[in-house]
Structures are given as structure tokens and as C-alpha cells.
């Protein structure tokens, strides 16, 4: 697949590197030759100096034969223009990064009007991820797929858990909760479990569940789910706005500390429910005065990475049970950052790159097959695949218990008539359904019938 990336900043180069490694043909365009040097030296991609909004440059980069155009320059308008030119020239999927809230609030219109496959806002994507972390503080990792419809929560089974040493059927029969264990990671091995699989303490278990069921399930198996009731956000940028909206929607109290008076006033207008404190977030006394010792969650999202890291470390030193999220945007010393006790770290640019890469992957999977979407989960070792069931599928109208499937396959959800449900052994797959499977990446399932053992 041919991919053209316009703009070689952090996001552009992250995407380029990852896609290169996965075997795509990548061309990167930027008008700064120094930025392109990383591309031409470090990866097997074509680097082109030029203006990505110029038709001539795009044609030279082979826009006619491109499958995906990703516009991630630092200007929203350039990105949109670039995608419009791309759409007019070739039959491709165009993805634009748009940061200005004015545009991203009109996302749907822009997407339809310009025929874009995806409009992504890094701040909003990062805020969404932060919001998830506060909503499920006990989960180690939260991934979403099927356009955010389904969440995959990963937890480690504690030593004295009720679940340790019990088979999976126990969850339904005794705990009476409706969660689906999709992937289990044990000592570096990834397993897609069947009903008689026995869970051990220390396993990393990823479950598919709605919010309420997930909370209930965590409580029953002995994972303390102290809910985050209030969050202190330090820094009042775009990300804060999206996150505050997101948190307020799920009933979490929000307090924002912002230095600039004008910005504070704007925030106060936009977020009537939030408490806006105008003051210096790096002032220790102010933080204590505003109760940094008492809040359940702290998010450090100022414009400076170093400051954010400092703030988080301070918050953690003040209170033991606080859930913290740190925004890191520019710093690249990942190993050092990982070694600090920071809790969750969110990098909006990487999140953006990750979203785009997911999109490209699922596009490749769907080319010439009935795969609708494909999501890498559990560090890429497992896949959740959404299939569309057509007349040609052989596995239809057979109750699932009678279906002779391969090992390590899980039929996770069935969407029928706009409704999603977790199938039991008596259900069957019907034509017109959408089916979500969880499979191991190494099995390379690309058709619904691939799951059949014969």
C-alpha cells in the first residue's frame, strides 16, 4: 500500500517509522530538509522536500497511486487543503490533523464536505485517553475499538482474588456479571481463553465490558475500585478543555488551575460546571491550598513537559492514593520517563499517531476481504477484527456450540439490527451481522471462515 505523509514533525515521523516497519511504501513530504534527514537516514521511506499543498509536489510523490494521504503539518488549513487536493487527484483515503477547536467542533461537516476518511485532533484524542484513565483508575491499560463503542480493560489479578484458580465459566455462573475475558497474558504468553480456562493470580486479564459491568466485576474479584470523584487539572490549554468536558460528562468534579486570567475567563465560559482557579500551578502553597493532598486525581497538562513531570512527582509525594496523569509532548527520553514513578503518561502526539496507524492497518485488512475493521490489542499480539457477514460466509445459522472453530478464537460481540450483544453457545451468526472476533495476530485471520477448523 502506498502512503503519503505530509509534514515530518513528531507525529509524521512516528507514523512513517511504524508504517515502514510494517511493510508499507511510505513517502514523506516536508519543506524542511533537515527534518527529512531523520527519514532518509533512519527508515526505508522516500523523503521529498517540497510543499505538501502543491499539486506538483504531490504528483511527484505519486498521489495518483497512493492509497492513503496523511496530512499532519502544523497548520490546520494546510492539512485540509492538502487533503482536498489529494481527494481531487486520486482515489484515496485522506486523513487530516486539525487542532483548532472551531474546526473540530464541526468535524462531521468537514469530514463529509471534504470527503475525508478521518479528522483527528491530538488534544481531544489525548484528553479522551486521560479521561478513560480517570474513569477506570484500577485498570492498567484501557484500549478502545469499534470507534470507541467497545472498551478493553486490562487488570492484573491480585493474589487473594476470588477468581484465582477458577475457570472462566465461574464469572457468569457465580459472579453473575456480564463481562467477556478476551485476552490473558501470562508470563509473556498471550492466550485467547475458552470457557474452561483457569485463571491464576498474577495474570494480566483484558476484558470487554461496559462501564457499569466493569466496575462491578472489578469489585467482585477483589480489585479495589475507588472511583475518582474529583480531579485537579493543572494548566488550562486545549487539552484541559476537552478533558474537563469529558470528565464532567461522567460526573467527575473538575478543578482547573490556570495562570492566565483571560484564558481562565474563557474556560469559565466554556465550562460552567468546572471550578477555575486563576493562579500559578507551580506554586507549592497554591497547590496545597487547593487541596492537592485530598483530590483523587491530578492531571498535569501544562505546556512544559519538565514542569508536568515535576508536578506529578509532587502530587504523588503529597498523597498516596492519588491517580495521576502526566502529559508529555516533546521529551523523548522515554526510558527515563518510564523509570520515574509517574503513574500514567499520555503523549497526545503518540496517541494521534497510534489512531492513524490503527486506521491504516484496518484499511489494509479490509482491502479485498470482508474485514471491516482491525485493531491490534495487547501490545499488538492479539487482534480484534470486525467482520461483515455476507451470503458467502459458511459459518452462518449454526449455533456457536456446534461450530467447529480453531483454538484461540473468541467471538466477542455480534451487532445485529443496530444492537450489540455477547453471544452465548445457542446464538448463531446470521447474514447481515457484524461480528467482532478476538484472535492471535500470528494466526492471520482475514476471513470469517478462517476460524473454522476444517
Amino acid at each position, binding site marked *: 500500500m*502506498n502512503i503519503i505523509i505530509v509534514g515530518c514533525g513528531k507525529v509524521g515521523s512516528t507514523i512513517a*517509522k511504524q508504517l*515502514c*516497519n510494517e511493510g508499507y*511504501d*511510505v*513517502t514523506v513530504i516536508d519543506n524542511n*530538509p533537515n527534518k527529512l534527514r531523520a527519514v*532518509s*537516514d*533512519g*527508515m*526505508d*521511506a*522516500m523523503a521529498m522536500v517540497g510543499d505538501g499543498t502543491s499539486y506538483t509536489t504531490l504528483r511527484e510523490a505519486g498521489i495518483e497511486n497512493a492509497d492513503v494521504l496523511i496530512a499532519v503539518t502544523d497548520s490546520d488549513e494546510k492539512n485540509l487543503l492538502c487533503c482536498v487536493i489529494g481527494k481531487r487527484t486520486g482515489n484515496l483515503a485522506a486523513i487530516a490533523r486539525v487542532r483548532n477547536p472551531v474546526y473540530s467542533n464541526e468535524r462531521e461537516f468537514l469530514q463529509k464536505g471534504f470527503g475525508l476518511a478521518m479528522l483527528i485532533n491530538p488534544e481531544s484524542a489525548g484528553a479522551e485517553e486521560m479521561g478513560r484513565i480517570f474513569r477506570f483508575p484500577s485498570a492498567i491499560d484501557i484500549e478502545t475499538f469499534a470507534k470507541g463503542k467497545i472498551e478493553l480493560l486490562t487488570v492484573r489479578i491480585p493474589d487473594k482474588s476470588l477468581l484465582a484458580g477458577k475457570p472462566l465459566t465461574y464469572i457468569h455462573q457465580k459472579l453473575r456479571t456480564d463481562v467477556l475475558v478476551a485476552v490473558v497474558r501470562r508470563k509473556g504468553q498471550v492466550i485467547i481463553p475458552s470457557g474452561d480456562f483457569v485463571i491464576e493470580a498474577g495474570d494480566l486479564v483484558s476484558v470487554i465490558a461496559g462501564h457499569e459491568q466493569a466496575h462491578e466485576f472489578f469489585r467482585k474479584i477483589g480489585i479495589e475500585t475507588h472511583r475518582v470523584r474529583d480531579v485537579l487539572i493543572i494548566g488550562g490549554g486545549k487539552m484541559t478543555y476537552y478533558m474537563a468536558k469529558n470528565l464532567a460528562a461522567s460526573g467527575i468534579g473538575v478543578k482547573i488551575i490556570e495562570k492566565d486570567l483571560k484564558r481562565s475567563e474563557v474556560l469559565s465560559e466554556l465550562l460552567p460546571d468546572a471550578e477555575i482557579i486563576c493562579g500559578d500551578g507551580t506554586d507549592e502553597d497554591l497547590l496545597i491550598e487547593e487541596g492537592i493532598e485530598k483530590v483523587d486525581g491530578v492531571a498535569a497538562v501544562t505546556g512544559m513537559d519538565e514542569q508536568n513531570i515535576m508536578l506529578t512527582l509532587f502530587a504523588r509525594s503529597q498523597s498516596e492514593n492519588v491517580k495521576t496523569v502526566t502529559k508529555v509532548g516533546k521529551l523523548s527520553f522515554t526510558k527515563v520517563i518510564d523509570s520515574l514513578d509517574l503513574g500514567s503518561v499520555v503523549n497526545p502526539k503518540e496517541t494521534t499517531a497510534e489512531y492513524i496507524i490503527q486506521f491504516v492497518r484496518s484499511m489494509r485488512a479490509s482491502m479485498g476481504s470482508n474485514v471491516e475493521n482491525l485493531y491490534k490489542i495487547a501490545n499488538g499480539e492479539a487482534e480484534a477484527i470486525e467482520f461483515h457477514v455476507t451470503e458467502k460466509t459458511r459459518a452462518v445459522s449454526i449455533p456457536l456450540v456446534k461450530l467447529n472453530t480453531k483454538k484461540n478464537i473468541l467471538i466477542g460481540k455480534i451487532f445485529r439490527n443496530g444492537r450489540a450483544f455477547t453471544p452465548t453457545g445457542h446464538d448463531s451468526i446470521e447474514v447481515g451481522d457484524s461480528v467482532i472476533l478476538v484472535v492471535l495476530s500470528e494466526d492471520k485471520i482475514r476471513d470469517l471462515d478462517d476460524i473454522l477448523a476444517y
Partner: protein
Amino acid sequence: MNYGMVIYILGWILKLESVMLLLPCIVAVIYREPAGISFLITAVVALVIGTLMSLRKPTRTKVYGRDGFVTVALAWLVMSLIGALPFTLNGDIPFYLDAVFETVSGFTTTGASILTAVEPLNKCSLFWRSFTHWVGGMGIFVFMLAVVPLLGGSTFNLMKAESPGPVVGKFVPRVGDTAKILYTIYFIITVAEFILLVVFRMPVFEALCHTFGTVGTGGFGVKNDSYMSYTAAQQNITTIFMIACGINFQFYFYLVARKLRLAFGMTEVRAYISLVLVSIVIITINITGMYSFGDALRHAAFQVGTIITTTGYATADFDKWPELSKTLLVLLMIIGACAGSTGGGMKVSRFVIVFKTIRKEIDNIIHPRWIKKIQFDGASVAHETIRNTNVFIAIYFTIFLLSTLLVSVDNFDFTTNFTAVAATLNNIGPGLNLVGPTGNYSFFSPLTKCVLIFDMLAGRLEIFPMLLLLTPRSWKRYN
């Protein structure tokens, strides 16, 4: 330097060479020559060493620019040392240093020989000699990148170090795919010439060897008198293919991709073709007294083609030509073919850039505030490229002069020494006087042979890799 990776890559090169060494074995089987066993032994040795070296893929696969340069220089050296073994083993070239000279001359597509007579050689040795031209012409690394799915992201530094020219670009995003395109074009040209030569009644074995020598712009033949005894038609075919292989291969890529305007707009190709045509005209006029007009034109075209593309075949003993023609040929030797071709020399594009730089310098003296960017193929040339080109020319002449000085220890006349260095540093083969088209390099002392071996490798790899190999700092372990 990333030693693990260097060893791993060298291992692969040896494995590839061992496969290539099987081809002369086939020739030996066809002609029932017992000497073929020496190639088999060498192939097995190369395979064993190569497999051992590439057994474990290193965890750090990053090849930085400096690693690429050193790896390529080392690989060419190792390849030549191994490739020389069969000649000594089967007794065709008893002295190992001579065999190394011959093999380096082959891989670097020089075509300078230490043999006083080639006809007594085994057919398999003759084949191997010519085949090294074919491999060296487009480059062993380009070949490796085309056939071995390798190593991740940073392989482009290998291709950059091996490919000639001031700027090395890719045709398509992937290095591997670019390499495949290059070799496909190369292969098609090879087959085309081979078929044409056979159709015009050159014996199959000779046609094959000469095709390798022509498309690789090497110059090893199978006859003592090079191309002199072949028919006019056969000579003309060779002329055309020599000149064709001296053109930047990007030209052919554009042709295939139907980007005709880009293809024929290439500054370098235009300059190269004009240079060829003008030289042919001047020499034809200059030598009409010695031949009929038709013959003069044919010989002039052949000799201009063979010299500017740095091939080194000869249809006439141009050592006996008038001074104007001889001097013009020596100048063409130094200019060489296009960047991105199989030819050697300093490359036409470098000269174009240098002339434009000179012009700019003069303009700047007249109008000191005149801001002027040097343009090439419709885009301004990066300052780095201009600097690199200037430095290249400075180093080139430094090495040229130092080599001439070292070679003069042997006490031969100046023309011999000067053209011997010119002919090896530019990968041509024959020079003038004692090393002229009818002479050879056997009479030089071992010291001179070593100097010329260095010159050939430096010329083919465009100097910098060889200099980096000799710089201790580049051997330092950084990771």
C-alpha cells in the same frame, strides 16, 4: 562502529559471492575443464565463512552513514581477496597479488590486466573475470538489497556509499524496490546486447563475456587484441551499449515510467551526450588521414565510448593516434560517465556543478552582492552537495598526484605512469604508451600494483569509503 552489523552484512556478501562462484563451475563443466574445481573450493570456503558470520542477526541493526562507508569498502576488499583465490588455485595467475589485482580490476570494472596473454586461460577463469565486471558494474550491495530482504530501515546508507555520483536518490520509497528496478533495467540491457551480438555471429561464449564487460563498463576481453579482430557490426553494437550504460539509470526509469519530459530534460544526460558527440566529431576529423572516413568514424565512436564510459576495450591502437586525439581521450578518462550509471571517472554531473560554481564565483567578483543559487535539473543544489563536490575534486586530484608520485618509483616514463594512474583511478583499463591498448600492467613492481589496487577501489567507491577505512576514528565503537 556497529561491529555486529558489519560482520553480519559481510557474511551475507560472502554467501552471495559463493553463489556467484558457482557460475564459473557450470562453465567448467560445459568445457570439461578440471580447473573448475578451484571455483567450487572457493565457493565452499566463502559459504562456510559467510554462514558463520551471518549466523546471528545483531540486535542493533542501525547502520549509520559512517558504518555504511566502512562496510562497503571492507566488503569490496574481502570480495576481491576471495574472488582472487581461484585464479591462484588453478594456476592461471600464479602470484596471488597479481590475482588480487586482476579481481579488483574486475569488480571495480576497470579492466586493467596483468596478463600478457589472455587466450591460454581456462574458459572458466575468463568467464569469472568478465562476470566480476557485471557484478561490480551495478554494485554488489545494490544486488544484495534487491535479493536479500534485509535489516530494516537504515540500509539506504549502504546503497549511498556504493552508488556513484554527488547525489544518490531513490526511485521508489523502498530501497529494496529501487535496487530491484535498477537490476531489472541492467538485466534487460544485458540480455539485449547478448542477443544482438549472437545474432551478429559472435561466438556465444565470447558474446557473453563481452556483454558482461560492456554493460558493466569493465573491459576484460577474451582475446589478446581486445576488439580489433571483430566485425564492424559487432563493434558498433558494443559502442552503442557502452554509451547506453554510461547514462544515468534514472533516465531509463523515467523512460519506463513514461515521464519522457523528465527523462530528456536531465541536465547530466544532455551534457554527456553532447560531450560524446563533440568528441567523436573532433577525433574523426583528427584521424581521417589514417583511415577511410567510415573507419575513422567507427574507431572514433568506439574509442570515445570506451573511454568516457571507462570501459576500456579498443578497436584500434589509439596510442598511435595524433596528440590531439590522445589528449582528448585522457580528458574524457577523467570526466567519466554519468552518476548513477555503471561507468567510472569523476562523473559528468560533478563537472556540470563545478562549472556552474566557477561561473557563480566569477559573477560574484563582478557583483559582490549578487545572490545566486546554483540550479541543476530545475532545482537549486544544496550547499552540502556543492561543498562535497568541491572537496571530492580536491581529494581526487590529491590522490591522483600522490599515486603518480609513488608509481614513478618504478622509473618508467611519465606518460605511462600518469595514464596508468588515470586509467585505474577512473576504472578504465588501458592508458597510453606501455599501458596502452596493446600493453598491460604486468611489469609494475608489487608496490605499484598495491597503489593501483587502492586507486581502483577508491575510484569505484568514489574515494570516501576507502579513506574512511583508513581513518582510525571511524573504527571506534560507539554502540
